[in-house]
Each structure stands twice: as C-alpha cells, then as structure tokens.
C-alpha cells in the first residue's frame, strides 16, 4: 500500500471553547454542477464514535456543489478493505468514486481512523489515509478527509478545514465570531455594544485585525486568537479603518484621515508607524494586497465616481481598472492573483462581480440587491459575501464560476462582514 500516508493529526493552535452559539446552517440555493458522483460508505466501527465521520465528510462534499452523494447504504456487508468492495454494485448505483474504511478504538483512548478513496471505473485506490485521533478531533479529522478527497478528485485544494470570521449584530450587541467553514463551532472573540467591522485574518491565521467603535470613533485593533490579547494598530486623529494584511504578515494597509481626506497608509507592525501610500484629495479606501505583496487594489473617487485602482506598494501612479458604471467598490484579489472580486452597483442594486486582469472582462456573479464584503476561499473557488434577505443580514457564497450558490442562515440577528481565513497546511 505505497499510496498510504500515515499522518498524525496535530492539535491546532487554537483554543477551542465550544460556545453556546447557534451555528450557521448552510444550504445550496442554486446552480450546482455536481459533476462527481461519490458514495461515502460508513466506516466500519464508526457507529461507536459520538458522531459519524462519514456524515461530516459527505456533508462537506455535498455543500461544495461539485459532488453528488450516492446512497452508500443497504449493503449486506460493509466493505472496509479493498478486496471486499463489490465494484459492480457501485457501478450500478452510478458512483464514480467510493469512500470506505474503518474506525477502531485504541488502548490509549485514541481512535485509529482509516479511509480509502477508490475509483469505481478503474477499480483502483486513489488515496488512503490513516489518523490516530481523540474523539474531540473528530470534526477536524472529517474535514481533513473531505479536503483530501476534494483535492484528489477536483485537483484543487479543499477548504473544509479552514475557518471564517464575521460580525453578528443582535439588537445593540455586536459580536465578532470565528467558526469552521461549515458554520460549526462558532466562538465569540469580541463582544461590544458599539459596531465592529472589517475583520481581516493575518496570513498565518493566528490574529484578526478589525475596526471597533468602542471609543466613539473607528480605531483599528489587532487580536490574537491564541491568547485573546489585543492591541491598537492605528488610533490617529480622525477615522482609522479598512485594515488589510500584507502577505508576509509584517505590515497592515489602513485608511486614515489624520492628514485630511481618507487615504491609504502602510503601518509596520511593532513600531506602528504609518507611512502614507496614496496622495489624493479624494477618497482612497478599501486597500487589498496582491498575493505577491507587490501591489494594492483600492477604491477611489478621484475620477469623479467610486472606481477600483491598482498601484505598487512602493508608490507611483495608480491605474484605473473599472469603467463600467458609477460605483465599483470593495476589491479583493483572487488567491492566484489573476482576477479580483468586487461590488458593482447597477440600477441601485449591488452585486458581486469578478474581473480578469488579463482580459479586463468583468462578469456579474450574483443577482441580489444588497451584496457587500466579498472574500475568497483560499482555493479561489468560492466567494463568501454578505447580503440581505427580507431585511436581514445573512452570509451567502457563490462559486467563482457563478454556478454554485450557498446561503448561510443563522437563527437570529444580522450576520455581516465575512472574512475567509487562510488554509493552514497541517502536518
């Protein structure tokens, strides 16, 4: 079994304190190519676990919109070894892929989880993994398995193990929360009676920068998710907002008004000294670093209407990128740097658009009315954003080809300001 990789799941850095929050529920609301039929057979022995790993794996794959989950039940014997697999059965069920394996308790309280991904047509094994985990690591392990399957089948990195952050407004209470990408395990990292906005993940996923109004004005803070320690990044005269991390995690671009109009500055962490980057008498805001750290996208009304510009982090003349319509804002680089997502206003409606740098062609991805704050999944395949349904703020997602749409619903409150965390490559 040369493909077999034995991995030992490490505990993530984060302190996971299960909170009493209602999780976000995700539903697929439209499109869906579902081109990969896959059967996820129960792992032999997993019924003894507090939760079935295969249920979580199947739910992850289903929600990606790319997989069709084929019924894996109703078998006389559950296959856990390749030799036990009856391929004709799965062919008859139109499954192209099959997942099976086993879960066995070990002497030290750990569980030995094994699974295989099989190609039904070729009757070969595509991947096989083993994990030794505690029951507490069950969800995380399931997401890792789903990531491995997703990557093997689609060729793209999975994002099921990543996390998201967002702001929930309930009455006059604002909470900055962090949750798994499937909406589970939400934890509040900051609660306030004043607005919180613009959370931004550090590239290593250990800190979040955000804007808080707790001192009766917008001030940029940074908070560790490991120690919960927070510090001020920018508290100058006027407004301080729109934090964006450089890819090396050493600098933050922020918007300050200390010298007049809203302008973009670079703050070096540690010294917290701010160097002015843009020089206009107009509004320059919403900076976003390119993945190579060399350029910044931003919104400016220097040309008379709000449009998206790009400039070097070393200064120089900005180049205007959007020309269609009078309101193009909130630019975000795709992780491969080849395109950017933004918000475009058309006839009073605000929607997510994606523009290719090379062709300069923009494509509208949504048809809502109040979309804002787009954020890419680390694999670039999904754009999470905030929108409104019946007057309530919710999160929604659209695949970057526009075909798959998801909606995240919470039980109460307005959910807004999403930011998708980085993909942390575990051992």
């Amino acid at each position: 079994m040369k493909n077999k990789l034995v991995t030992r799941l490490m505990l993530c850095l984060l302190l996971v304190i299960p909170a009493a929050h209602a999780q976000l529920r995700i539903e697929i609301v439209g499109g869906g190519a579902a081109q990969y039929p896959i059967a996820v057979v129960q792992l032999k022995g997993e019924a003894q676990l507090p939760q079935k790993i295969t249920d979580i794996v199947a739910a992850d794959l289903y929600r990606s919109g790319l997989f069709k989950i084929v019924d894996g039940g109703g078998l006389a014997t559950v296959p856990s070894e390749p030799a036990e697999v009856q391929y004709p059965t799965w062919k008859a069920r139109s499954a192209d892929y099959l997942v099976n394996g086993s879960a066995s308790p070990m002497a030290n309280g750990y569980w030995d989880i094994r699974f295989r991904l099989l190609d039904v047509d070729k009757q070969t094994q595509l991947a096989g993994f083993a994990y030794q985990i505690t029951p507490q690591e069950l969800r995380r392990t399931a997401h890792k398995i789903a990531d491995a399957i997703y990557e093997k089948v689609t060729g793209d990195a999975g994002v099921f193990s990543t996390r998201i952050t967002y702001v929930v407004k309930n009455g006059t209470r604002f909470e900055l929360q962090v949750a798994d990408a499937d909406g589970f395990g939400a934890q509040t990292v900051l609660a306030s009676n004043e607005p919180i906005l613009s959370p931004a993940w550090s590239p290593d996923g250990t800190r979040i920068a955000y804007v808080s109004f707790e001192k009766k004005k917008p001030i940029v803070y940074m908070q560790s998710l490991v120690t919960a320690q927070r510090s001020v990044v920018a508290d100058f005269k006027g407004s301080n907002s729109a934090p964006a991390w450089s890819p090396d995690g050493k600098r933050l671009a922020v918007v300050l008004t200390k010298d007049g109009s809203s302008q973009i500055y670079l703050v070096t962490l540690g010294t917290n000294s701010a160097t002015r980057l843009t020089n206009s008498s107009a509004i320059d805001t919403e900076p976003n670093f390119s993945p190579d750290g060399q350029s910044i996208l931003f919104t400016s009304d220097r040309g008379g209407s709000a449009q998206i510009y790009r400039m070097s982090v070393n200064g120089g003349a900005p180049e205007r990128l959007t020309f269609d319509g009078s309101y193009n804002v909130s630019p975000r680089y795709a992780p491969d740097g080849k395109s950017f997502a933004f918000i475009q206003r058309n006839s009073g409606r605000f929607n997510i658009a994606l523009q290719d740098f090379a062709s300069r062609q923009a494509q509208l991805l949504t048809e809502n009315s109040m979309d804002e704050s787009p954020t890419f999944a680390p694999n670039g395949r999904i754009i999470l954003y905030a929108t409104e349904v019946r007057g309530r703020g919710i999160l929604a997602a659209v695949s970057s080809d526009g075909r798959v749409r998801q909606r995240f619903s919470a039980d109460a409150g307005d959910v807004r300001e999403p930011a998708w965390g980085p993909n942390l490559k575990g051992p």
Partner: protein
Amino acid sequence: MRKFLTRLAAIGAVIGLIAGCASQAPKEQNPAPVDTGKPVTAPVEPVKPKVVEQPKATPVEVKPIIANPLKDPGSILSKRSVYYEYDSNAVKDEYKPLVSAHAQYLKQNRGRKIAIQGNTDERGSREYNIALGQRRADSVKQMMILLGVQEAQIETVSFGEEKPRSPGKDDAAFSENRRSDIVYDGE
C-alpha cells in the same frame, strides 16, 4: 425561490430602465424637514419651558436662570445635525445658520472642543461609507474653520452606515441617516 429572485431581478431591471441612467443616484425630494427643536444627541436635561406660568402667591424669582445655550431647545445651538442628499457632502443652505452659530460659539469659547460625526445611509460598501461620512464631517469642519474656529477645536470622525438613527429601509429613514452630528466635549 430561485424563480422568485429571478423575477424580482427582472422587475428590478425594468424599474432600473424606467428610472433611467444607472449612474444616477436615486433622486429624492429634499429630506423632510427633520428635527425641529427636538434635541438630537444625548438626552437633554429638562429645561423649564418658556411657557408663561401663572405666578402663584410667592414672589417671582429675581435671578434669571442661566441656561446652557447648547442645551436650550430655544437656542439654535441645541440643534446639532446637518443632513445631506444621497452621495453628497454639500452642506445645504438650510443648515448654514446652524453651522455658523456653532462656529460663533466655538470662537467665543476657545476651550471647547467638538467632534463632528459623519454618517451615511446603509447603501453601498461599509468602508466606502466610512470615507463618505468622513467627508461629510469634514465639510462642516471646513465651513467652521473658514468662520474662524481653530482646527484644534475640531475632530472629525465617521461612523459610516454603522450607527443609523432610523432603522428603516425607506427614503425617509435613509435621509435621516445621511447626517453629521456635532458633539461637544464631555457630552
């Protein structure tokens, strides 16, 4: 649901066409004259209204009560809000006497400081709205500086769309929320 959304989108598109150019902000009537004498920021301590009361048997008090003009509903200084058109930061003529009165007060009271808090309605990007609110607050500040107020007496900040005064989703609510508020130190 999808169909409904598509239909909604279609209706929206048609309305858009009828309304004309997409680049134009929706035209609105002047915001209804909001706020007349109603104190706007912090709750105001009740000040005796200037209603003539029938004096009782006791003699009328001799000393006049020195009211704080900033909180006297009869004084223009108790008015603290400047309202704007959509996507605009121009201080309209009707609010110039208000700005001018505060400028005079600040010139006479050099020790006093104010924050001007800019606000926007909820449409559009939150961060862009922070910048737009800032520009609104700055427009009031510029006017005051031209009238002789010292720059050190004023800090302009923006709340963007984050602290709407009206929770509504209609034009009246939006008008109410496109606003700069003048807040004195200690208030």
